């Protein structure tokens, strides 16, 4: 990774300015031009170095709700069940993990009352019980990684 790209990744994960010409302001701090910064962010989005660029919203404070949920899926059935679970628009992330509870996913709905309903529909569609792990308390959420 080029040093300038690395500096962009390491310094712009949360401090993108709120002003008329934010790229110009951020570019100046990086010692590059406004056009160059825009072009580099474009390129890193296109090549997959970045997954997003913009504001990160807190789902819960936007009136939406989400919960972590898990299922124990028979090993030979993971593909099929993942297909069913992933087809739900309410399922945002889904990870296979090495545990008896081997499928972990996030269920997100526009209103809090939607969570139980979505989980019931996932259980009905898969024929497997879903354990919900809603957060009771958040101590820290911030994923900032260095390049």
């Amino acid at each position, binding site marked *: 990774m080029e040093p300038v790209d690395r500096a962009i990744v390491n310094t712009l994960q949360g401090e993108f300015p709120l*002003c008329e010409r934010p790229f110009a302001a951020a570019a100046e701090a990086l010692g590059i031009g406004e056009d160059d910064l825009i072009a580099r962010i474009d390129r890193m989005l296109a090549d997959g170095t970045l*997954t997003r660029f913009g504001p990160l919203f*807190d789902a819960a404070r936007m009136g939406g709700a989400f919960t972590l949920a898990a299922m124990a899926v028979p090993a030979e059935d993971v593909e099929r069940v993942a297909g069913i679970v992933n087809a739900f628009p309410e399922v945002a992330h*889904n990870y296979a993990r090495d545990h008896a509870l081997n499928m972990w996913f996030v269920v997100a709905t526009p209103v809090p009352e939607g969570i139980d309903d979505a989980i019931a529909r996932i259980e009905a569609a898969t024929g497997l019980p879903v354990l919900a792990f809603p957060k009771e308390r958040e101590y820290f959420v911030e994923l900032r990684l260095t390049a």
Partner: protein
Amino acid sequence: MNGPVETRSVDEAIVRATQAGLPRVPRPYHAVAESIGVAPEVVIERMRAMLASGAIRRIGVVPNHYRLGWTANGMSVWDVDDERVDELGARIGALPGVSHCYRRPRRLPAWRYNLFAMVHGRDRAECESQVREIAALLEDAVRARDVLYSTRVLKKTGLRFA
């Protein structure tokens, strides 16, 4: 001029217009303002307010951590004394390398763990050294622990709110 209802609908319009990303043009907030039909100053002011309230966690680039070499992630889970979990959870969340730290309900008998801390590393060894740091911090308040490594990403899409 802006009553609460109007402010909320402007905020919702900003969310809809930016949740897939900010326009990469010299005046991105002006472009957003134009697309939703409000003044640029309103977009900047409302986004500043949402940042202050926590509705926007942050604004910037989101790297693909796999691409950056952070390929290992473990969900460390801990059965921690209920009396001490809040105090200890806050300290664990402050450790570098821990990206998310939550208290969640136990689901007995299948699941005894009430504290979840995501750790990240370039390999499992880095994750494990972070898990050791957490264990050292928890000392005798922890009764059992496990680390669930992800073996495969089955689905990953951004959350959509509006």
